[in-house]
């Protein structure tokens, strides 16, 4: 057995008392748990009569997160249509923009959750939504970093700029604090003033820091020159411009000059009289101790990392990142505190260990949404080629299948899952086939939607089964017409035969056809089964008879028997139907036709006599049967006589 990476979480089943045994059954997205009596025999104690449903992924049931699933489904489908054969240069911007779309959906969702969490009065709901917000925040943070490192794969120089953006986006409390300071009566004297300035510098937002400092400078005319000097230092700090003509080496030289200048200022104690400016100066030099003194303002080790890179190694290469990341994390976190899952995930990302990122995320997060979509995107970027699983097809497909199976258990989101299954080349279809048959069909409209999904994918087995379910339901409700329509749609000959049989029975019992609008309009569908053909033709005979087109009717009737379309059990009825035609004044059946009719009657009576010795049949019925045969014989004989006379007469 493989080793477990982390201890699995324990879920308490509330109603199962201690010391009892439990049984369980796996479902696609959840587990059913029930109490069992674990005794070989003679157990008579009453067990608990509940079955518990244990869900792993309960996010699927959050109404707000449903928007995330729906919107990202759209993005996912769009991503699958990006053509494989395009050169990677033109594909990369598309992938980056798709990644940004995913993130903006996460953000929108997060904002809405935040709003609800704030506005709700229910404390429990607020906590629940609050938790979801923090999960989404973490997801977005990880996704953004993956976008910078893997998808965009920025080279040295621009890499740092992207990382700065990343930190700024996720450390937005600076702006809040700045707003608070600026809105106060005298911003420069606010107690958070210097915190804001330092935070700006830590994030490399030097322009904003300068504006704040200008406010302080006006208050301290005596120290004007010192403020002026700091302002110059801040304004001169070079930033790499990836679009410009400057090479990385040129930038590096320029940056070193600036760095030395700052260092000189610190050495000659230019800022010695102002503690705050001296701190800023040390920050600009990337002084580790000073930075670590401002842990509060940095908040996280990865902010520390980015700040340190900004002021010490602005031209850091992607391959060097892991070294700095590791050291920053160790420096920042207390030796006693254990890194949280998020820390190790980010560290794994800095180490470019994509699989570790995905693995840790799968363990830490309670939904498959994130890993499935991220993995899919990374796979499209051709970053997951080398890895093989010991099971299933590949990592992407495995995660997509898990996510889609979860969706399929949802009473409403199952439709989304179909497109995910479609994009799993190896097992998607099997999963879909197994799941789609289990969608509960409450209305015909839903059945039609499910059918459409199956028909588009040529899943004929499932089409048959769905039509059969619907046909059976219609039959149970005595809706023969509907039942027949469904079996025609499924091309289910056996079932069509069964229903035609019912129609004929009804006719024999009542003497009229029901559902004429359907039977009269069978068209080519009539050929689906012999019995259905007979039903259609037999109805045609009735129509001809009603229209008094007797000879045509007679011909059709005879052919139904001679061509063996009519079932033997129905011949008696057909022959009885022939009676009124035989009794007409004019001759309708010719002599030959009459012989054939007589032959049919003979066949029927002989088979009746041999097959059924009539032991269990009541005498009365037997009598009626015999009378009928007698009547028929008489009518046939009379008709034959008339026909022979007529055919023998030369028309003058």
């Amino acid at each position, binding site marked *: 057995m493989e080793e477990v990476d982390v201890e699995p979480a324990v879920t308490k089943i509330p109603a199962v008392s201690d010391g009892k045994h439990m049984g369980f059954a796996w479902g696609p997205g959840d587990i059913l748990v029930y109490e069992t009596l674990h005794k070989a025999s003679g157990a008579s104690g009453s067990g608990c009569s509940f079955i518990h449903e244990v869900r792993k992924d309960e996010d699927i049931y959050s109404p707000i997160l449903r928007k995330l699933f*729906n919107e990202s489904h759209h993005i996912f489908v769009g991503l699958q249509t990006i053509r494989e054969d395009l050169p990677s240069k033109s594909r990369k911007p598309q992938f980056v923009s798709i990644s940004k779309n995913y993130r903006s959906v996460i953000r929108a969702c997060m904002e809405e959750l935040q709003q609800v969490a704030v506005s709700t009065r229910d404390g429990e709901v607020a906590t629940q939504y609050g938790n979801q917000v923090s999960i989404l925040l973490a997801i977005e943070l990880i996704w953004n970093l993956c976008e910078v490192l893997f998808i965009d794969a920025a080279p040295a120089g621009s890499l740092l700029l992207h990382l700065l953006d990343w930190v700024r986006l996720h450390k937005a409390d600076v702006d809040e604090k700045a707003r608070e300071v600026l809105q106060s009566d005298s911003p420069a004297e606010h107690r958070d003033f210097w915190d804001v300035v330092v935070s700006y510098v830590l994030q490399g937002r030097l322009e904003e820091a300068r504006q704040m400092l200008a406010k302080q400078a006006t208050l301290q005319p005596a120290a004007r020159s010192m403020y002026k000097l700091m302002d110059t230092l801040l304004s001169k700090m070079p930033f790499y411009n990836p679009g410009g003509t400057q090479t990385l080496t040129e930038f590096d030289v320029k940056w070193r000059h600036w760095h030395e200048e700052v260092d000189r200022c610190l050495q000659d104690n230019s800022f010695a009289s102002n503690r705050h400016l001296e701190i800023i100066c040390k920050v600009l030099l990337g002084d580790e101790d000073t930075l670590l003194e401002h842990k509060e303002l940095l908040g996280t080790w990865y902010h520390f990392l980015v700040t340190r890179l900004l002021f010490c190694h602005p031209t850091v290469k992607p391959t060097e990142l892991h070294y700095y990341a590791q050291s920053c994390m160790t420096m920042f976190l207390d030796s006693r505190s254990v890194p949280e899952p998020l820390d190790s995930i980010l560290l794994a990302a800095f180490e470019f260990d994509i699989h570790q990122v995905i693995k840790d995320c799968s363990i830490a997060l309670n939904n498959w949404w994130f890993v499935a979509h991220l993995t899919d995107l990374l796979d499209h970027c051709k970053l997951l080629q080398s890895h093989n699983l010991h099971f299933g097809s590949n990592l992407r497909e495995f995660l997509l299948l898990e996510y889609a199976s979860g969706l399929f258990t949802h009473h409403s989101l199952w439709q989304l899952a179909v497109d995910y299954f479609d994009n799993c080349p190896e097992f998607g279809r099997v999963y879909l086939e197994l799941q789609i048959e289990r969608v509960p069909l409450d209305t015909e409209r839903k059945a*039609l939607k499910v059918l459409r999904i199956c028909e588009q994918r040529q899943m004929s087995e499932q089409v048959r089964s769905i039509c059969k379910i619907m046909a059976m339901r219609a039959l149970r409700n005595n809706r023969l*017409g509907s039942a027949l329509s469904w079996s025609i749609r499924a091309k289910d000959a056996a079932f069509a035969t069964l229903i035609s049989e019912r129609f004929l029975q009804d006719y024999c019992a009542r003497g009229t056809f029901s559902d004429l609008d359907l039977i009269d309009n069978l068209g080519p569908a009539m050929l689906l089964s012999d019995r259905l053909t007979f039903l259609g033709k037999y109805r045609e005979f009735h129509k001809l008879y009603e229209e008094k087109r007797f000879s045509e009717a007679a011909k059709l009737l005879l052919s139904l028997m001679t061509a063996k379309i009519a079932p033997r059990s129905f011949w008696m009825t057909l022959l009885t139907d022939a009676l009124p035609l035989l009794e007409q004044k004019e001759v309708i059946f010719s002599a030959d036709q009459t012989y054939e009719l007589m032959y049919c009657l003979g066949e029927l009576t002989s088979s009746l006599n041999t097959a059924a010795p009539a032991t269990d049949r009541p005498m009365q019925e037997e009598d009626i049967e015999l009378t009928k045969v007698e009547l028929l014989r008489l009518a046939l004989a009379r008709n034959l006589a008339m026909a022979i006379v007529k055919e023998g007469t030369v028309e003058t």
Partner: protein
Amino acid sequence: MESINAKYVSQKISKTRWRPVSHSSLQQPDIFATGSWDNELNKISFWSIGSHGGSAMEDGFEGDPQLLCEHKHDGDVLDLQFLDQDRIVTASSTGAVTVFRHHQNSQTVSVVQHWTRAHRYPCDNAPCTGVVCSSPEIVTVGEDGRIIVFRADQEGVIRVIENADSSTIHAVTYLRTTEILTVNSIGQLKLWDIRQQSNSPSQILSLSGDRVPLHCVDRHPNQQHIVATGGQDGMLCVWDVRQGNAPFSLMEAHSAEMWEVHFHPTNPDHLFTCSEDGSLLHWETSSHSDMPSFLQGGRNSSIMSRSAMAPAGGNQSLISAWLSGDSSKGRLETSHMLPSQTLSVNSLDVLGQCLVCGTDGEAIFVNRQVSV
């Protein structure tokens, strides 16, 4: 130009309908109702698209539809029709028919009339699939093949046509005040005169031989003999119910079930269809003669203008562009109104310059600048 935006609403939308506007004013509609399906708890909801103040329009500012109020609904909402400005009728998958009232002052919804199991089998519920109303009369159809006539203000049932159809009736519309038209799942159109006591249709029209199920039907707002239907194969059929028993023209529209078809209520040269394939089409046929505007009745004044129309039926210049023969294909323009998406567009409604539609992707799209 393309001012269509999606609003995700966390429920699959089965029906969307604009609240009618009083035809005396030239107002654009501002409130619409939606019904959901396939949820554990289904709802009907009322939404506002905000004021149509001039300044907002000039800015091109398009606010999201805002939820006004909602009410739970037992079963899927299979159809939805406004009876008047405040009342709305729903058809439920439980077979129930319900009239809701939208109280606009307090923004609440209440049930004013409820017929449980209006459509049913002997021992099961039968979904009610369609409803059409002409206040106070309400006509519903269902999977049980029955047609039921109610009055909004009466508890009882006015009339039932048992066994009106041997298969499922999917949709119903009024042809005249006393005549309705139903479409069923074996490709037939049936005309019923509800004054007659007989339980059989006055006329049956059908697609020859194919038996393609028809899912939706709409009547031309001015010319009551012209009817458009859409079916399982996504074809748009235009019928002249006065002539023949086959469709006048067949047009390939969608690649899957067409769920709804609507003529524009005041500019019937425009027609809109939506489908399971996830598309929403705008059809425009250019008529050869400009119809006098007084003959183009509004949605709610249609009864009046219809009677004015009747004698003009023989007038050559008034023959609808939809019936001008095969050559009309050349002058028929279609355009997609939604960005590409894969999930079904279940319903649409168009009124004035505003169009609303709802999808299985749990999104509502509103377009306030339909060029008609």
